[in-house]
């Protein structure tokens, strides 16, 4: 793996490299270089499978982190490529030409995070939320409680407990 990293570093600008497990590595790439990096990994280093494409909302840093998880079936190594993109103008180049199923991931991200992938087929057709009108629900600035209360007729008298508190009170009532 390290050899691959060395080779990659000569070509691409890679920021971080860390090993999570014996067979799981993460690198952080530049947004602009991502597609060529993935192509390179797929075609040269046999990372032929895209396992998933995920996003994390770092609202504090005002950015989304996308994780492209690829897998090499010859060596049984998974390699996650992280890319950080701007949260305001969330847009990323599509990789549906590399893996057809990427378009589904991208549709999901578009709907749930509002990250656009121009050119990805069917990117604007809904994924699970039919006719969602609010801000994308997976963004951290979306207040789901408020939304639920506003929308879903909460049953009056429902009590909500903090599980930790509740269990503590129930199991060790003497402590209170």
């Amino acid at each position, binding site marked *: 793996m390290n050899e691959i990293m060395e080779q990659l570093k000569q070509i691409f600008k890679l920021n971080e490299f860390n090993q999570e497990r014996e067979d799981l590595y993460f690198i952080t790439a530049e947004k602009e270089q991502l597609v060529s990096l993935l192509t390179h990994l797929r075609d040269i280093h046999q990372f032929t499978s895209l396992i998933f494409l995920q996003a994390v909302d770092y609202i504090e840093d005002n950015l989304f982190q996308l994780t492209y998880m690829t897998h090499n079936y010859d060596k049984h190594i998974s390699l996650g490529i992280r890319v950080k993109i701007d949260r305001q103008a969330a847009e990323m180049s599509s990789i549906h030409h590399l893996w057809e199923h990427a378009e589904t991931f991208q549709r999901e991200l578009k709907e749930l995070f509002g990250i656009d992938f121009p050119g990805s087929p069917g990117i604007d057709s*809904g994924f*699970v*939320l*039919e*006719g*969602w*009108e*609010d801000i994308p*629900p997976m963004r951290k600035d*979306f207040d*789901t*409680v408020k*939304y*639920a*209360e506003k*929308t*879903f*007729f*909460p*049953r009056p008298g*429902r009590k*909500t407990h903090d599980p930790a508190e509740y269990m503590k009170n129930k199991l060790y009532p003497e402590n209170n």
Partner: protein
Amino acid sequence: MIFGKKRKVVTKLENDGLKAEEKELFCDLPPRTYKGLGKYVEKFLNWARANSLWILGFGTGCGAIELRPLMTARYDMFRYGIAPRPTPRQSSVFIIGGYASIKTIKRIVRSYEQMQSPKFVIALGSCTINGGMYWDSYNTVNRIDYYIPVDIYIAGCMPRPEAIIAGFEALKKRIIAGKAEGANKYAENFSWYKANQKKIIKDWNMPDYNW
């Protein structure tokens, strides 16, 4: 009290969700309320209905898993006259097996409306009662009875098959007592139900009358 004010069947809905060319493809007759045939006849029929409960399982969540054991030799729901049925047209009991998301509520409504009255609804698990553990989710409804009339709630997360059988027994009693008139309730408060449904279902591409 949900039905604090007595609502009449109000103005006919216009199938707004449909495209113009699709309107001809769907029925546009509003629901009607039905009276029984007379006290004793109806009593007899209710008894028959109560002992021939054909269920349509709407397996949205964990409830679907709890329904399966019912059919097995261990719990054997058949001995109570309960049998599964694959299509809403022929079923009389609608079991909503857990939390209902916005996406599924659309299908729940359509399936419910496609059942023939008298029809009964069993809401299984706490999610259907008040949203359960998903009470604050952005896409899980909290109270299923705002969207379709519910006859019996079976509380629990999840209720065991025994609980479900108990629920069925309760439903039977209710039917025999002539109280399970959810279909009529739905018809009487049709526009209210529709309004609730449409409030959460944003792309309403269904007809208003799913018979």
